[in-house]
């Protein structure tokens, strides 16, 4: 085969074929609008044409019941899903603070090299292995019903909210510790070499060089875990803590209408969607910055 460039052919054809041109250029916007409308139309039509559509709409999407379950009804003793949701919010915020602190601590122990910390390294590894593997629901059961059964004074006489928070924290610390650890390992080795050749100690390098860079790279994955945590506060309902889902269930069994569950879903979405969008934007910025630094 010749290594020369091809000089035989005359002017090559550079036009896109007709079928490709339909979807590109000025047509792009129109095509995407048509396809969106078509898709959404099909889904909505399917929902209304389904044989049980009327029942579902009455049972889950009834405006009157949705509003009533949201605000509650003190006279008849109906609990407010909205108020219950406040419990989800404070649980998630409190847990997140604990999770970040403890997760960083566990990660720090796992990457440490001091012989003094050797037993803690083994413990930390076992801990993350176990709690990343056990389903959160089981941890909630074990903590929520196990700790009170132990009969250990203060430890055994807390409210379901507290046990719920403990279970969430224990599980999420294991996840978040691994995120931090991955972030620490993602810092280029040259950074560590440069810091070491300045005569900085291991601890100082960790605090001043490694962690500040690691934290920056793990913010998006940490936000992802925060979003999951926010949703998983609903699992605490199995312990009887009155949060949004529990309140909606109580409403459902009292009034025989499940619209409260949809209200709870909407409340969760109101928090998670903006957070997800925000995380995506951060990830996008990060990716663009990385691409820019390559060129």
């Amino acid at each position, binding site marked *: 085969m010749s290594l020369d460039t091809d000089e035989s052919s005359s002017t090559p054809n550079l036009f896109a074929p007709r079928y490709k041109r339909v979807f590109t250029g000025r047509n792009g916007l129109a095509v995407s609008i048509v396809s969106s409308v078509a898709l959404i139309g099909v889904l909505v039509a399917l929902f209304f044409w389904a044989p049980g559509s009327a029942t579902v709409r009455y049972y889950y999407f009834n405006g009157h019941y949705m509003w009533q379950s949201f605000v509650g009804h003190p006279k008849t003793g109906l609990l407010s899903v909205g108020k219950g949701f406040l419990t989800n919010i404070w649980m998630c915020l409190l847990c997140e603070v604990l999770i970040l602190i403890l997760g960083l601590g566990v990660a720090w122990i796992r990457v440490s090299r001091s012989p003094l910390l050797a037993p803690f390294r083994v413990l930390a590894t076992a801990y993350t292995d176990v709690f990343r593997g056990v389903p959160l629901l089981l941890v909630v059961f074990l903590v929520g019903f196990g700790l009170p059964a132990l009969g250990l004074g203060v430890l055994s006489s807390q409210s379901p909210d507290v046990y719920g928070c403990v279970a969430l924290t224990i599980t999420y610390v294991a996840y978040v510790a691994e995120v931090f650890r991955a972030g620490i390992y993602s810092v280029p080795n040259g950074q560590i070499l*440069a810091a070491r050749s*300045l005569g*900085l*100690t291991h601890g*100082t390098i960790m605090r001043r060089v490694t962690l500040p*860079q690691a934290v920056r790279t793990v913010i998006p994955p940490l936000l992802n875990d925060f979003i999951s945590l926010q949703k998983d506060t609903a699992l605490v309902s199995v312990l009887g803590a009155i949060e949004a889902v529990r309140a909606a269930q109580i409403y459902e069994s009292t009034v025989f209408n499940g619209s409260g569950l949809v209200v709870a879903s909407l409340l969760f979405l109101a928090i998670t969607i903006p957070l997800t969008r925000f995380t995506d934007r951060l990830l996008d910025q990060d990716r663009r910055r990385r691409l820019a630094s390559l060129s």
Partner: protein
Amino acid sequence: MSDVVLQLDQVVKRFGDNEVLSGVSLTLHRHEVVCLIGASGSGKSTLLRCANLLESIDAGTITLFGQSLNDERIDPDLVRRHIGMVFQSFNLFPHLSVLENILLGPVRALKRDREEVHAEALALLERIGLRERADDFPDRLSGGQQQRVAIVRSLAMRPALLLLDEVTSALDPTLVGEVLDLLRDLAANGTTMLIATHEMNFARDVARQVAYLDRGVLVEQGTPEEIFTRPRHESTRTFLERVR
């Protein structure tokens, strides 16, 4: 005190079965510049890393100010505070400003007064013409500027010697000059340096001694004149012909 700063004696370094340094001996005197030349993979970088204990050695001795670094009581962190090192890829800390990059070592490792070091750092930046970039982050600087800041970061530790590991190899050809000029300036002012380099003209200009490394063996060492015009060994001659 003798004026020998660093001495390597029969240093052997292996990575697994691969012997990277096979009994290298080298002496660096105060105010002296020694250039290490040799093909990529000849062991230049490893030698520099061994010298400030970033790598452990398998045999031989390294002596700094007459003290053997093989001694178990040696604290590597203390050793490195006396030895500056500059890398091929700059390795500035991207989350710190130029000024903070320079302050980190003196303030956190040497526990020196921040204000005092601050003034010194600005003076050093002034000297390399980057005073007004003090508050910029490294990614706003060109490669040549970053490397000059990295050199100044090492100098701020007031090291007894400077190790430079192919500091111009990652730079655009147009930016090599400004970095080499700074090194020439340092050499003229008596900074003790051990320089691994591919810049033969530079080595000829600034080095008191040039050492040629080939696959972990220090084949020959001499003045630039001896190495570049009358190399005694066939392999040195071949290498020089190839890089020319």
